[in-house]
């Protein structure tokens, strides 16, 4: 099978997707100083970045689902947009930092925060190790509303790939994935209704051998949905089995009738008798 790439397959946007949706600063512009890069490639209804830019360099307009475009001549690379982006998808790159190093600023919402001068592992959009980086700045003013912005200095050739840093404290690693034989648990033995402990096999029996055609009819035959939760959990599971067994579209399957009390209520509460404490 051909390996598909792009945001919906990889979980991060390809360079082409970014260029098409948001544009990419020219080398001339990079040479002039820091500039923001939006990596927001899908048409989602969101535009706080537009208002967050003090220089009105970010354009979305109408409809609100337009992808953001950053005017390279207007953007000063101030970084106000980084924490304003609800999707944490705006970065600032400064390729003029030094002869060999460039700066990348990114949102970083994990504790503990790094400190200026820390050597950290710089990671790519895909979370892979790219290179070492040095923390140059950590900004977390009130207006960022708990979205700190970290600036790393990294070798120039890597700056287009670095988009974050490795978290400083990581959970203890586990054993990881390994191939395994299935245990061969029969689906018929899997419980469907937890309250009454009714299995998928019992539900199928009600359908195949006892002529149940609806969620209610299944309930009457095998008690699935008769328990404390009144089918609130299993109703959907039963209707899925029904549609598999009967080959009917799910929209033809009516759920079971909802009856009061919607929440379990004691007889005392119902009768309106105050409990003596």
């Amino acid at each position: 099978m051909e390996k598909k790439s792009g945001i919906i397959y990889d979980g991060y946007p390809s360079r082409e997707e970014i260029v098409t949706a948001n544009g990419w600063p020219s080398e001339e512009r990079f040479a002039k100083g820091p500039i923001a890069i939006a990596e927001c490639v899908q048409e989602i209804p969101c535009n706080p970045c537009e208002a967050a830019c003090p220089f009105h360099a970010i354009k979305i307009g109408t409809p609100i689902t337009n992808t953001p475009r950053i005017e390279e001549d207007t953007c000063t690379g101030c970084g106000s947009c980084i924490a304003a982006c609800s999707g944490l998808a705006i970065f600032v790159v400064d390729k003029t930092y030094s002869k060999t190093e460039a700066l990348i600023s990114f949102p970083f919402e994990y504790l503990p925060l790094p400190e200026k001068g820390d050597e950290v592992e710089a990671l790519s959009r895909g979370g892979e190790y790219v290179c070492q980086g040095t923390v140059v700045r950590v900004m977390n003013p009130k207006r960022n509303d708990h979205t700190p912005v970290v600036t790393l200095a990294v070798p120039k050739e890597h700056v287009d790939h670095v988009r974050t840093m490795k978290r400083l404290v990581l959970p203890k690693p586990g054993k990881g994935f390994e191939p395994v034989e299935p245990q061969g648990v029969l689906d018929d033995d899997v419980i469907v209704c937890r309250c009454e402990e009714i299995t998928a096999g019992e539900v199928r029996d009600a359908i195949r051998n006892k002529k149940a055609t609806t969620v209610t009819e299944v309930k009457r035959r095998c008690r699935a949905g008769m328990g404390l939760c009144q089918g609130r959990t299993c109703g959907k599971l039963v209707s899925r089995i029904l549609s598999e067994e009967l080959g009917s579209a799910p929209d033809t399957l009516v759920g079971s009738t909802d009856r009061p009390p919607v929440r379990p209520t004691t007889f005392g509460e119902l009768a309106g008798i105050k409990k003596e404490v």
Partner: protein
Amino acid sequence: MKREVVIIGAGPAGLAAAIEATKNGCEVLLIDENRTAGGQFFKQLHKFFGSQAHSAGIRGFEIGKQLLKETEEIGVEVWLESSVIGIFAGKRVAVLRHGITETIEAQSILICTGGAENPLRFPGWTLPGVMGAGAAQTMVNVNRVLPGKRILMIGSGNVGVIVAYQLLQAGADVVGIVEGMPRIGAYGVHAAKLKRAGVPFFIGHTIAEARGKDHVEEAVIAHFENGKILKGTEQKIDVDTICVAVGLRPLSELAQMAGVKHDFIPELGGFMPIHNENMETSVKDVYVAGDTAGVEEASTAMDEGRLAAVSVSYSLGHLSSQAAEQKKEEIRDRLASLRQGPFGERRMNAKKRVVDMGVNL
């Protein structure tokens, strides 16, 4: 006891509706079964999408706080820790409160009881340690308890991906996100946050088993094609928690009990109450809003709540037809803008179908 408007559920839709209706002069009673109002708001630590008109860029719980403050300032009557146990003939709402069942006769009822998480059946799904992603989110963000240390997320929609991110932030390890479809469901920007943190996505995969003695110890995942597991592709991973985020469905038991006509709208979560362009159902003076009226998101829920409140205010004579129409127009514009784009379009079209059915009721 009598009230002009009874609003059931004080989440995004209910709070916004209560504020709007009270401002318009309605006598409102807002009921919620939880200890605090706000519904899902207080689980939402991330910044919301949308435009400024939708409070975009603000974290969900901050929006919740703002709405709560406003309900207090304008003096909305709020009953907390009060469960509505049924709606009965004559628009009577039975409420279990302080250990006693009380019945309130309403002129209008607005049902915004939200949604419920869909279950997923697989061997071992009843083991402790398998839970809904929403439940995990409540644990970590509201109760400040980590549901587990090593977590596998089933479902790559916005809920799965946002909850996975918050679990990471809280210090858990999310070992992977499993998605049955051949593509990631969530907004790409949410997925990208997890990818940067090194969390793998397993698209075209499903959960095959949860294993463990008294608690989840291992998860088995496998390739998934055309609704079937591909034998021989099983892999296991050591985890203590499996979160299931395979969609929500509208919670509309109360609407059903009130006799509201329902239909099956898969894009909005399945069986749901049909409503018209004013959020009114097939039963006169019974309204729905928010996830109850089709699963969407908090921003649309708030505006649907306001839309219902404006309609109620007009029908009770608290707003002139002109004032009501103007308000409705503004709200509908905002809703339309939230439902644009490839993600919103399906919901937009589904909502149109709902409203078309609703108009002909």
